[in-house]
């Protein structure tokens, strides 16, 4: 390709009008930087969430009640997941791929210690919860099997709860009160470091029996306490689907659902959660980048405008070049390459700016996400800039080729 030989001509013509060229490039620079930063933020946010999800284990299944859609209670909002379901699911004979099951019943409630009080998400659960949810303990320990069966008044709290109540996190052995009931702190969770997805910093965990019987006013369904959700852990990542089927079968049987009935519960796996998060973030990113892409369009129109001015200004030069033997294609390529150089340069500056912004953001302490600009985004940015140059440079370049050299040479 002999295209390269037009580049020096283009560069010298751009250098002759530095101010104008840089103002023209501004549109492309802003457009490219905006698109890249938004893509980077979207990617950073989704990596962050996905990392969080993955760190909690990819073998987890969450069973939630789907209210008001089963035969018994059409239209009403009766929750039908009960402790009876939990006990049945805990039987490994029928659920060979389910390793552990942990019920949860919880809500937001006031926790008091001395004169201090705070609102915490208090969840009644079993000892298996720590394992299923990959909880890390900073101080003390999690709830034990004995404490669950004996319904001991013990609690494991997150760091925010601990510091709100005691001003420190070394609080094992301290006492707190929930609904007038005293609880002994047996453990403090590791700080999760961000206030976002999957954080347990403002949580408290108590034995499920205590939550059902003494803390919350829990309704019963068919004589059993209901639960807010059930977490289960599959034996391996490959067996998650099998575990899901086994759980579904058992629950449908227990809930007396016919072949045509919809399930009154739903099972979500970490994999399906990952899918959902992925599609949400990519939709959001797409939306935001299309807004940013509008500035690219505006920038492109700016390029076209300036190239038209440039062609008019250089009418005499075009006439001269034609007289000296330039082919139509030479004139076309000269102006196309000029607009290509303008937009590519703009694109490169835009890329540099977006990288600078990403580096700057990563230095802000406590900023929740990184801005991640991938190679694919870079290639895309360069491609789009080049495309802009070609598309918006084509019409002015064609105008240049249509000039009659005789008229052009006389042009003043």
């Amino acid at each position, binding site marked *: 390709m002999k295209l390269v030989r037009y580049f020096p001509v283009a560069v010298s013509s751009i250098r*002759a009008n530095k101010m104008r060229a840089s103002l023209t490039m501004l549109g492309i620079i802003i457009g490219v930087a905006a698109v890249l930063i938004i893509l980077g933020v979207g990617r950073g946010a989704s990596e962050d969430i996905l990392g969080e999800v993955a760190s909690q284990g990819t073998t987890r299944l969450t069973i939630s009640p789907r209210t008001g859609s089963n035969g018994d209670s059409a239209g009403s909002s009766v929750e039908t997941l009960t402790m009876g379901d939990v006990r049945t699911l805990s039987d490994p004979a029928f659920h060979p791929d389910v390793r552990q099951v942990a019920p949860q019943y919880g809500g937001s409630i006031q926790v008091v210690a001395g004169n201090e009080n705070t609102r915490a998400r208090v969840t009644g659960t079993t000892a298996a919860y720590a394992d299923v949810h990959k909880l890390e303990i900073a101080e003390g320990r999690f709830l034990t099997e004995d404490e669950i069966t004996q319904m001991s008044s013990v609690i494991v709290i997150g760091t925010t709860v601990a510091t709100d109540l005691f001003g420190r996190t070394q609080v094992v052995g301290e006492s707190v009160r929930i609904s007038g009931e005293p609880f002994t702190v047996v453990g403090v969770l590791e700080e999760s470091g961000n206030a976002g997805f999957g954080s347990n910093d403002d949580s408290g965990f108590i034995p499920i029996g205590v939550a059902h019987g003494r803390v919350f006013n829990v309704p019963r369904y068919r004589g059993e306490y209901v639960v807010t959700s059930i977490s289960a852990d599959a034996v391996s990542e490959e067996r998650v689907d099998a575990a899901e089927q086994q759980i579904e079968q058992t629950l449908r049987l227990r809930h007396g659902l016919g072949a045509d009935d919809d399930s009154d519960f739903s099972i979500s796996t970490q994999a399906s959660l990952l899918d959902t998060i992925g599609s949400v973030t990519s939709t959001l990113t797409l939306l935001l980048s299309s807004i940013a892409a509008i500035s690219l369009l505006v920038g492109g129109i700016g390029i076209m405008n300036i190239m038209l001015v440039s062609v008019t200004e250089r009418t*005499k030069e075009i006439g001269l070049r*034609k007289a000296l*033997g*330039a*082919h139509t294609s030479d004139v076309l390529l000269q102006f196309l390459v000029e607009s290509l150089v303008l937009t590519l340069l703009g694109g490169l500056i835009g890329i540099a700016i977006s990288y600078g912004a990403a580096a700057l953001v990563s230095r802000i302490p406590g900023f929740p996400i990184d801005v991640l600009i991938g190679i694919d985004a870079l290639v895309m940015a360069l491609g789009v800039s080049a495309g802009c140059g070609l598309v918006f440079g084509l019409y002015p370049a064609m105008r240049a080729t249509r000039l009659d050299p*005789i008229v052009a*040479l006389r042009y003043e």
Partner: protein
Amino acid sequence: MTDSSVLIDMQNLTKVYQMGETKVVALDGVSLSIDEGEYVAIVGTSGSGKSTLMNIVGLLDRPTDGVYQIRGQSAGELTGRQLADLRNREIGFVFQQFNLLARAPAWRQVELPLFYANVAGSAARERALETLAQVGLADRADHKPEELSGGQQQRVAIARALVNRPSLLLADEPTGALDTRTGEEVLALFEKLHEEGLTLVIITHDQEVAERARRVITMRDGVVISDSGGAGTAAAGGGSNGLSEPALASLPRPVAIVQVEEKVYEAG
């Protein structure tokens, strides 16, 4: 090819411009032949058709009717691309206003036709410098137009016209924008090039410029009214300009008046 020494051959050329409702006949049956090595001046007042003739000779325009051959090739049969290549290789243009690129050094200006002849890099630069030396500007190669005098600028333009070693140098009022002394520099250069065997065709309204040529063709109202030497009759380097009486009579009036006319023409 009939005669290898014939460079340009025109048979009954006409050029008609459609200006709105009216037709303007710029050329009305011009037949001319110019041999290689000739030094020809085409003179005439504005509106005489000499510029139209130059555009056709320079392959920038096509005649409405008639045959124009350059080196035996009929221009009417060539595509736009072939015409561009012929302009590039066979014809060197020199304009009244020099038409140099602003901001480019002299050697870059001279290199320009080589770019379209696909000569690049150090070969192109060397040839540009060589040609600049030929017009006596070896020491001005890196000067930009604004750093050169008018005469020097025109010599750069002449070097640009010569760099591809064309068969024909076509000059349109080459001294029109120069004072007498610098105009003289340019005419002396033409003299030298002519002696080296280059074919020169100069369009002018300046009697003094015309008198330097070996052959003078006078035009009026789109026809040739006098020709001091037919094709082949004026020997190269013949010395005498052989202006006939009618030719002299039709030559432009004193320069000052003609220049006023020229301005009207340019504005139109």
